[in-house]
């Protein structure tokens, strides 16, 4: 975690977060250089999703420092003693630089696939419609969905929906892609096609942070792996270390069970 050479694409330090009295994140940090693929693994309930959602402020963390492409996120402490973003505009701007892919796709069902993909470029970034469509079509071709561009999400299989949602996230040119278990809502036969797309993104040198249960895949594509346990980083390092020679006893157990 301590590799700070040039400006990192994403730098998150010492994130704390409670739900009510229940402290779920207890000082989690993460740094990703441009081109890094960071996998976050851990058992169910180890707060992986919560941490990922804190990164793009879908959950507002109680404490922590955030830097996206060198830009600091400013917070102010509210009357409740917790942090609040001091400038929601900034958050909104930064969010469009952090493409999020959800486990359950979350495509907007009242729009066709193409409309889903161009929604943010046109309405958030203000790109003109024609350019956005060109770009979207290129991306849909890349994820192999060009022929489905005018279909509504409900008519696509899970794998196709997930690929569409990846295209949607890519279309705003995010500097970092965030994936929250992008394959676990898919049945085994559909997982492959989505992993293929993600792998091609990794090969392109995209910066990515990915929560996943696919150990084999994480091992293959990641530059770093982070093992979360009860809201703390229990082990982190290159995949060879985390999977091959974990230091922490819990991580050892988890990795052993994962490759059953």
């Amino acid at each position, binding site marked *: 975690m301590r590799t700070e050479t040039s400006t990192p694409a994403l730098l998150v330090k010492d994130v704390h977060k409670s739900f009510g009295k229940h402290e779920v994140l207890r000082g989690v940090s993460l740094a990703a250089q441009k081109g890094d693929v960071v996998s976050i693994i851990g058992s169910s309930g180890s707060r992986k999703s919560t941490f990922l959602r804190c990164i793009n402020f879908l959950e507002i963390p109680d404490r922590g420092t955030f830097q996206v492409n060198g830009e600091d996120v400013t917070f102010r402490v509210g009357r409740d003693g917790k942090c609040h973003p001091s400038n929601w505009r900034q958050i*909104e701007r930064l*969010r469009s630089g952090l493409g999020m892919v*959800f486990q359950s796709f*979350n*495509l907007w*069902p*009242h729009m066709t696939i193409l409309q889903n993909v161009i929604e943010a470029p046109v*309405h958030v970034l203000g790109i003109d419609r024609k350019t956005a469509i060109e770009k979207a079509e290129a991306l849909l071709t890349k994820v192999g969905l060009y022929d489905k561009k005018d279909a509504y999400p*409900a008519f696509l299989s899970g794998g196709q929906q997930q690929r569409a949602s990846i295209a*949607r996230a890519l279309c705003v040119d995010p500097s970092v892609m965030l994936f929250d278990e992008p394959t676990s809502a898919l049945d085994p036969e559909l997982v492959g096609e989505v992993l293929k797309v993600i792998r091609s993104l990794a090969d392109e040198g995209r910066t990515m942070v990915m929560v996943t249960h696919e150990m084999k895949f994480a091992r293959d594509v990641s530059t770093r792996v982070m093992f979360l346990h009860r809201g703390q980083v229990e082990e982190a390092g290159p995949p060879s270390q985390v999977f091959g020679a974990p230091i922490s006893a819990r991580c050892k157990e988890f990795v052993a069970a994962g490759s059953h």
Partner: protein
Amino acid sequence: MEFGWVLEYRDLLLHGAFLTCVLLAISVIFGFSLAIILAVSQVSDNAVSRWISKGYCTFFRGTPLLIQLWLIYYGLGSYLPYVPGLRTSFLWPVMREGLFFAALALTLNFAAYQGEILRGAMLAVPKGELEAARAVGMSARMVLRRIWLPRAIRIGLPTFAGEVVLQLKATPIVFSVTVMDLYGAAYKIRQDTLLVYEPLLFVTVFYVGLTFLITQVFQKMENAVPVQRRHGV
């Protein structure tokens, strides 16, 4: 059965049918706009606006339309002449008419029901879709405008169709504030001729026809976004 009177009263009937349609259109359009405000403020974080909207909906859903109409027309309306300047203003010819108050009461009432439905529909939009919108950097306002409301309206669409039909059926009440809508026309004809059923039957056919039309329009709107059907139920 005797329908000779239809010709004799045709102007009255035509005008009545026209008024019925106008009242329906006005109250649905304005009521729906007001309903959006009511629904949004009910799901907002602002406690004051939430309570105001809640109170509004409770009152208008909790009392009969007839009483609301009387309160607005005979109550509110009877104080209007005392508003300085209003009697001489260009608004007066409109504002002293029963039609104005009938439209107002119907609109306010429709908004209350619609606001409740829309609120439910907004809560029924899967949270993930809203998060996806926030995650691409949309502001709260844009999420509302581009994703939340359009989705909620679609979810509520089947219910809205029913509500518009209910609204149509509520319009006869305006006759009690001197608006000669179609039902009012039928009432007059019944009093004149002492025919009991024929005028009512005539009116019924009109309402059923209009209902059919409304249902068709909404069906068209629903079909605009195809949804995959669940099979086997």
